[in-house]
């Protein structure tokens, strides 16, 4: 056999989806799967109607509302007419075009990036898109998954393709063993802290190494979810036995007669030995500690045992100015201990951390304890109705409620504060979401990104605290 050039997983999936090679890395790429939600789709459906166009493959689509659904009082009318109009538009569009639609009162309803994998819709080797940047989540299965704008949503609906330019290959290898008290969220934050929010721009990041292999499929989703916070449109993890076990028997998964062929194909997707990456980064997993963001960019991370950096820690003037602005917004001082930052509000949820494993991780810390008196509100928002149901079967809802948390209905919620779940100006939020941008959780709200266990611990203490102290006390 002739020697062939070793390929990366991204190279393989890309090559498998070329409809037309247009040279110099440009190609018309076939899209297998499309998730649609209420916020970035109405204008795309309008575009189709205006041009008298149809949807190429209705079977490739699941539509589900998530971004602005209320997380409580769902039996009452939605108080926000704009939100109602958008939710109604999704339902009407799904009906008109004959799409699989998961309604708000369906037990499967939830955040698109939780629902897709849960339904087995997300599979290794597919191209998967959604009008949401956190579509990178699905890369945890070895799917080439990325967020698109509304014009591209329309393009995929009409043509089942996208005109794309190939990205660069980047690999992030996490070596060693993840220490106790750390989770996939800390790995994600550690990587972003190391390479910066533009570190992956123009690249697809493949995550590799023993720490990644040891992560559960849920953990890999958390990690791939935040690829976009490192600037990369997509993240990838090679499919393995855990991936197959996760998918087996799910509604959209291959049926029994096709299963073996599918698994064989999935296992062929891993990067070849000797494949060349344009960028290769190594992170020492043994050194990862529970992290907290102090600023207004996900790269502004500090160990919970550490301090807000000093202005002089940054070399260039632009960074120094950005830091001063961030500190002013966050109401923090340079050199302040992270554990001295008070926490007013706690949010456990979002497409980053709202799966059953996240619920369990937080509940384990909370069990038998109470949130601090100073906490204004602590909410747990499961990622889907099915996650909620499973958590309730395990009694986790009771653990949270007994401790003083609220137990909500599934949706994006306070991650982006499109619905009534938001933080007030000046309030510090321990949040398991993905973005600590200015105003993201409400005008003036101060977001600190943490893992579910760290958010739970902060709720109990009323300030940031090393979750390992809680684990130590238990053992």
């Amino acid at each position: 056999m002739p020697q062939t050039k070793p390929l990366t997983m991204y190279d393989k999936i890309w090559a498998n989806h070329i409809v037309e090679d247009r040279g110099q890395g440009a190609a018309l790429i076939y899209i297998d799967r499309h998730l649609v939600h209420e916020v970035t789709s109405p204008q795309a459906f309008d575009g189709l109607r205006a041009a008298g166009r149809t949807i190429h493959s209705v079977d490739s689509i699941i539509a589900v509302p998530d971004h602005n659904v209320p997380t409580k009082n769902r039996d009452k009318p939605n108080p926000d007419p704009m939100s109602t109009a958008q939710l109604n538009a999704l339902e009407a569009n799904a009906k008109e075009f004959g799409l699989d639609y998961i309604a708000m009162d369906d037990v499967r309803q939830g955040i698109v990036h939780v629902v897709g994998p849960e339904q087995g819709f997300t599979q290794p080797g597919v191209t998967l898109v959604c009008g949401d940047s956190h579509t990178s989540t699905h890369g945890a299965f070895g799917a080439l998954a990325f967020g698109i704008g509304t014009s591209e949503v329309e393009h995929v609906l009409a043509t089942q393709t996208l005109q794309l330019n190939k990205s660069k290959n980047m690999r992030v290898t996490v070596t060693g063993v993840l220490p106790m008290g750390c989770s996939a969220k800390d790995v994600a934050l550690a990587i972003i802290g190391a390479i910066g929010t533009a570190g992956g721009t123009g690249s697809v990041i493949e995550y590799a190494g023993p720490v990644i292999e040891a992560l559960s499929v849920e953990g890999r989703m958390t990690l791939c979810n935040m690829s976009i916070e490192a600037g990369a449109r997509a993240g990838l993890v090679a499919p393995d036995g855990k991936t197959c076990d996760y998918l087996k028997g799910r509604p959209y998964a291959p049926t029994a007669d096709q299963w073996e062929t599918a698994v064989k194909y999935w296992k062929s997707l891993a990067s070849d030995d000797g494949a060349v990456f344009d960028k290769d980064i190594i992170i020492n997993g043994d050194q990862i500690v529970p992290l907290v963001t102090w600023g207004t960019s996900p790269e502004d991370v500090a160990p919970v045992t550490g301090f807000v950096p000093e202005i002089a820690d940054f070399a260039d003037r632009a960074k120094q100015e950005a830091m001063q602005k961030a500190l002013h917004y966050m109401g923090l001082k340079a050199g302040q201990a992270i554990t001295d930052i008070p926490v007013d509000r706690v949010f456990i949820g979002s497409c980053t951390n709202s799966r059953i494993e996240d619920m369990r991780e937080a509940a384990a810390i909370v069990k038998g304890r109470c949130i601090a008196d100073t906490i204004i509100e602590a909410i747990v928002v499961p990622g889907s109705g099915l996650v909620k149901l499973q958590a309730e079967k395990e009694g986790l809802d009771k653990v949270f409620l007994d401790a003083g948390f609220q137990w909500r209905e599934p949706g994006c919620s306070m991650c982006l504060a499109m619905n009534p779940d938001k933080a007030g100006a000046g309030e510090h939020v321990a949040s398991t979401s993905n973005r600590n941008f200015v105003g993201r959780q409400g005008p003036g709200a101060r977001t600190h990104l943490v893992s579910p266990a760290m958010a739970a611990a902060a709720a109990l203490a009323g300030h940031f605290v090393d979750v390992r102290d809680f684990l130590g006390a238990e053992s």
Partner: protein
Amino acid sequence: MKKFKAIASIATPFPRANTDTDIIIPAKHLKSIKRTGFGEYAFESVRFDSKGKRIKGNVFDAEKYKGAKILIAGDNFGCGSSREHAPWAIAELGFRCIIAPSFADIFAGNCVKNGILAVPLPQEQVDALVLAAEAGHEIRVDLGDQTVICQNAYYKFLFNLAHKKMLLDGLDEVGQTLQVMPAIDSYEEKQKLKTPWLFKS
């Protein structure tokens, strides 16, 4: 889509690094089902205080920069959410061109679809253009020969060829792709044999 060939205009300087799409248009204003009406909320936290009062001296409402069609921005502009409402909002403020050291991938793609030219230039050239913008000098951006000219400065920029053609011709991308539907159909037939589990029979 509006064609883009060249423009000459004064420019608004907003060189903040890592300007995310939540800054460009906050999520709470994404509830419209139309493509328009986002301009009044564009850069809300820069233009209005927490009580909704206009912040004096903000560059987006300053008389000095009125009529500017060019925005001089910071590194990693448009990072974060994929919302196309961001370029829609920017277009409604009157901008047709953004010059920055770098752009987030999804945002840059969204600009092309909306007839906005996103020009990448090295940091020091952007720094010089910020000063020129503050001094009220006119900047000329030509997509045809991929140049930015301001007083004595003359900068060349790199630009994706396919995107250039789309902008110059104001192409309807969906219409363009629909012309190769036979290729898409035949790809699909091939895939139905290779990965049959992805297709409902």
